[in-house]
């Protein structure tokens, strides 16, 4: 250890710990032990982060609505997630009489499994990914798309009109927004030249002066970052795209007929999906675990990853507190008439950027195209909606 410097040791502390534990086993078992420890890390850290997120969401929403959030259980309500967990565990597990019991049971498990699988390829720090897959990004999106299957399983097997309506909405929404989600991620793959997430992070790792080379600081990167954020919100059924579980319309959507811990599993899986999509969006656009300034590289890489993810989660909560739920037709129009064309245009702009070569011209050209397209599309979209001061037929 004496040869290593302290920041690097702290940065790699989890890797060193894993190697140290594995060193007690025969060499043939060491990779397995390493993977097992990584899995344990993932299934303990991210649900912990989920618990914190739920608490912060409730407190943050409270503050935004000018009230305290939960503050009764423990200091500042910090043990609220524990109380909620105990409550979920001791509640009765009800399966409707006419439900398809097997599928009804499998749906939350499939959901949670699919979400956890996505974490396998997420680089949460330098050298800290469970599997360094060449097609990691593809694998991640394949896994996040599997959650649609479980949503439909839940909705169909419950034999309940609200569940089925929720599942239908969810599938329609998730498939519509899967397209811009993937296409805005493809942009990053075009520039980084790799589907491997550690390599995408490595491609953004440099600094100009103190400023990082993150993709969000390029015109096309910024545009696809915003699109990715919108699509990710829709993909994780978060407000304002929470139609599949809009409680004021269809009770709880596809998990109406779930109670007790199965409901809790859905809840956990939804939040874990939100955290994982925040992680992937951090990886794609915000340089993953890279420090925001070159002089901050002494801070451990995993800290930066989680700080960025928390920032994302805060934005999710903030948006939830601000925007009302969309209508189904608005949701679809927005996806197919605005987001998708803009994403395709962005794809072209990125290609242009890629082939224009280094220099200031490509900045000007791509920015001009994107801004002009945004203003034009926005204006035509708004004009066709006849948005303006509202006139009332009966009221004064």
């Amino acid at each position, binding site marked *: 250890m004496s040869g290593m410097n302290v920041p690097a040791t702290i940065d790699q502390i989890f890797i060193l710990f894993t190697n140290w534990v594995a060193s007690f086993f025969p060499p043939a078992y060491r990779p397995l032990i390493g993977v097992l420890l990584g899995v344990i890390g993932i299934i303990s850290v991210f649900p912990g982060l989920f618990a914190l997120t739920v608490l912060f969401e409730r407190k943050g929403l409270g503050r935004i609505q*000018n009230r305290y959030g939960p503050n009764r259980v423990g200091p500042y309500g910090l043990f609220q997630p524990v109380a909620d967990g105990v409550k979920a565990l001791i509640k009765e597990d009800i399966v409707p009489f006419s439900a398809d019991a097997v599928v009804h049971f499998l749906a939350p498990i499939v959901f949670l499994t699919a979400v956890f699988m996505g974490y396998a390829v997420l680089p949460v720090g330098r050298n800290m990914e469970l599997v360094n897959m060449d097609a990691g990004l593809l694998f991640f999106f394949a896994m996040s798309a599997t959650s649609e299957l479980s949503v439909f399983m839940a909705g169909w097997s419950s034999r309940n009109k609200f569940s089925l309506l929720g599942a239908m909405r969810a599938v329609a929404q998730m498939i519509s927004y899967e397209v811009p989600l993937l296409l805005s991620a493809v942009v990053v793959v075009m520039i980084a030249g790799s589907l491997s997430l550690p390599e995408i992070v490595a491609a953004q790792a440099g600094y100009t002066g103190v400023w990082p080379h993150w993709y969000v600081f390029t015109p096309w990167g910024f545009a696809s970052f915003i699109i990715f954020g919108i699509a990710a919100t829709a993909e994780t059924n978060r407000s304002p795209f929470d139609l599949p579980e809009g409680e004021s319309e269809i009770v709880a959507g596809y998990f109406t007929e779930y109670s007790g811990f199965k409901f809790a599993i859905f809840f956990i899986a939804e939040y874990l999906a939100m955290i994982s999509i925040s992680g992937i969006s951090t990886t794609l656009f915000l340089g993953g675990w890279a420090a925001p300034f070159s002089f901050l590289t002494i801070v451990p890489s995993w800290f930066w990853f989680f700080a960025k993810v928390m920032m994302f989660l805060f934005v999710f909560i903030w948006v939830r507190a601000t925007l009302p739920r969309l209508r189904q037709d608005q949701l679809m129009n927005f996806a197919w008439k605005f987001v998708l064309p803009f994403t395709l245009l962005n794809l072209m702009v990125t290609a242009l950027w890629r082939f224009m070569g280094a220099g200031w011209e490509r900045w000007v050209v791509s920015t001009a195209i994107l801004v002009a397209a945004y203003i034009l599309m926005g204006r035509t979209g708004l004009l066709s909606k006849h948005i303006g001061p509202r006139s009332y037929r009966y009221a004064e």
Partner: protein
Amino acid sequence: MLGEGIIKGLLETARNFAGSYVSKERLTTVQYPEEREPLPEASRVFPFLVYDGSDWLAGMRCVACQICEKECPPKCIYIEKSADKKPDAVGKPQAYPTRFDIDISVCMSCQICVEVCPFEAIKMDNKFELATDDRFGGLLLDRKKLAKPNEYYHQIHPTEAAEVDARLAAERAAVEAKAKAAAEATAAKAAAAKAAAEKVASEKTATEKASSEKNTPSAGGGA
């Protein structure tokens, strides 16, 4: 421009978020069991019985007239009248309740009992933390539990209590004046009677004297 409204909305919520940490005006929550706002004077929950002085039984204003029992819409009051009498708030000898029960699980806080009471004996309380795990006994308040001093009444409804006190003082004064007048009248009458009696007596003695003077010889003579 597209997205302008969203930015405005986000700024508004951000202002609320930050403002709730610095401005007491935004965060108006009163954290109830620890913090309480003073109740408005007119707040009312269930009735209680007022007593004067320190002894709740001796000072109880209720005279068991049973008007409230009869007027109570949900019939939650039960009164038993005493056979003996004690002086009431204004000093007249009156009966008192040997039993006065209010079932607050039935009471609907209408205040009609207070409106009809001619003796200012029943008033509205503002004590609202009455939850109990004893569903029947815990919600049936007897006269001991209902009795509260006049000072307490002053504390919860100061304006109203002052009016009531003034009214009672006036009545008490009237009763006293009447009693005094009656006493004076009796005294005058007594004095007159006494004077008359004296007069009669003196006349009588005079006559007796005279007659004795007259009669003695005759008596002697008669003997």
